[in-house]
């Protein structure tokens, strides 16, 4: 068990390190932030001074090493724009993003899983087809279209909800719905197929054959098995939530990490962009790690040794 956990932990760390390296190399190779930040008409000596100041004149490998060294000391660098520590800038935005993504995750799981399971239990009925269709519709609508259409209906035409901004709970409704819809569809579809697969297993027939009521067969025998694959997809959801936040926060002018990323990217604010990428990668890797551990907890076949 300890061996397993430490192996997974090691793999998670390697992945984060890889993302860090990858983003560092790609971003440094892509061009000179000095020119973007300072504008085109700045004399060469100012540019040189700027580069010296930010350490951009050193060879790439040295920049990388000092970057790594700094990170291990908790220093994520300074924003090139306002010279504030990048980590502070990012952390400042985290609550806003959490306010959007946490309810969205709850919504996704809370609606998606029951809908999928319900559809599986009524396989091939009109309800089932309806759920499948809605689910497919849900994840094929791009979130920016969804967002704009919602704005068009509720903010522009009906005028009942604000079209953007941050502060009151009303502000959160439209972005919350927008960010959830796709995930609900994916989870519903996945839960449905996981449940259908489980319902076809011999042990479900065994449970029925020993006289367990159908209701209890579903609850006591089918769900614990279907939960195993559903947990996986729920873990992946966490990652896509953050990606979704970028678009949604842009549409609704929501002051979260996604919005900060877009702004920093267009400003070539290296430290902030790297810090955000690192944070997101860490969240995704952690989510995957939790899924792996949950998996072992849910599936006794993985937990204990197989005798045969």
């Amino acid at each position, binding site marked *: 068990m300890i061996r397993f956990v430490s192996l997974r932990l090691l793999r998670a760390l390697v992945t984060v390190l890889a993302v860090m390296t990858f983003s560092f190399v790609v971003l440094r190779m892509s061009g000179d932030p000095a020119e973007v930040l300072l504008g085109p008409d700045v004399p060469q000596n100012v540019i040189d001074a700027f580069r010296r100041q930010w350490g951009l004149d050193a060879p790439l490998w040295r920049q990388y090493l000092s970057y790594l060294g700094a990170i291990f000391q908790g220093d994520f660098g300074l924003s090139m724009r306002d010279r504030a520590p990048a980590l502070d800038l990012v952390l400042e935005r985290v609550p806003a993003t959490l306010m959007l993504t946490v309810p969205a995750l709850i919504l996704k799981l809370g609606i998606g899983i029951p809908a999928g399971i319900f559809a599986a239990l009524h396989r091939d009925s009109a309800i089932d087809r309806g759920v499948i269709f809605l689910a497919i519709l849900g994840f094929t609508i791009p979130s920016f279209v969804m967002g*704009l259409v919602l704005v068009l209906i509720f903010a522009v035409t009906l005028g009942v909800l604000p079209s953007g901004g941050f502060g009151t709970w009303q502000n959160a409704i439209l972005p919350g719905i927008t960010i959830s819809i796709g995930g609900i569809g994916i989870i519903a579809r996945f839960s449905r197929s996981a449940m259908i697969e489980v319902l076809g297993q011999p042990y479900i027939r065994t449970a029925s054959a020993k006289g367990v009521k159908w209701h209890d067969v579903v609850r006591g025998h089918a769900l614990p098995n279907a939960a195993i694959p559903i947990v996986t997809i729920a873990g992946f959801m966490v990652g896509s939530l953050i990606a979704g936040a970028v678009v949604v926060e842009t549409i609704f002018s929501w002051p979260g990490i996604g919005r900060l990323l877009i702004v920093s990217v267009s400003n070539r604010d290296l430290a902030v962009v790297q810090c955000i990428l690192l944070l997101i990668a860490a969240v995704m890797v952690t989510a995957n790690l939790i899924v792996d551990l949950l998996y072992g907890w849910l599936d006794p076949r993985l937990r204990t040794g197989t005798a045969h």
Partner: protein
Amino acid sequence: MTATNPPDLLARDDRRRPRAAIPTAVALGLGWLALMVLCAILADLLRPYDITQMDLSARLMPPLTPGHWLGTDELGRDVLSRLIQSVRVSLVIAFGATAISAAFGTTLGFLAARFRGLVEQFVVMLADFQAALPFLIMSLAVLAFFGSSMLLLVCLMGFYGWERYARIARGLAIAAGAQGYAAAVEQLGATPRRLYLGHILPNVASTLIVSMTLTFPEIILMESGLSFLGLGVQPPETSLGNMVGFGRDYLTTAPWIMLAPSVVIMITTLSISLVGDWLRDRLDPTVR
């Protein structure tokens, strides 16, 4: 051995079963996709106007205006013409990227299955890394810092979803080798080339095609998302996402600029998903 599993009774020659009627939704989806492909191929002939041709006297004309059936935008450019061109651009990017991703992933998957050991470990690790990568955000950064070009966009999108093909190709090739036809063909003395290209690839093709129907709409969504954020296809070229992005400013006054491409994106991805679901049920019930 027994009839405990009723479908087994009838499973013997499923493939020869008289073609089941295509469900209406799937038929409509196929029709729409055919229309889109035609649009993309014949874009130059179909476009009533050039996409950059401005007509400042006819700005923000609503749909159903004679000569501009889907209206015009803020510069008086014909929305229908731009839409047709956008379909072409978006489809070309999605096709190109899907092809790259499928070829890359399948090759890696086969390599992993063929050599096992370290090669396999490496491919699996790479796939894990890819799955843990915030791909949209990464590509956002890359495009922002490198500047967007069609070629870069296609290549970048081509890195999306390859791990899915790699996993499938590896899994199926190993399964085929474990006790199936691949082991049998190898035991006949076939070279790896004959084995992989002549036997395994044709056998896994249907599964790969089904997973393409999963990746394809995702790539369309991602490309349009990036273009919407202004980081994908750059003006004067146009794509579906980029049209929505620019149309957004006229959401209240001229919603058709944004709605027309939105509807096209939705119906296209919906059609592919419906067709993909149907294909999966028919060809390969094993993938999710």
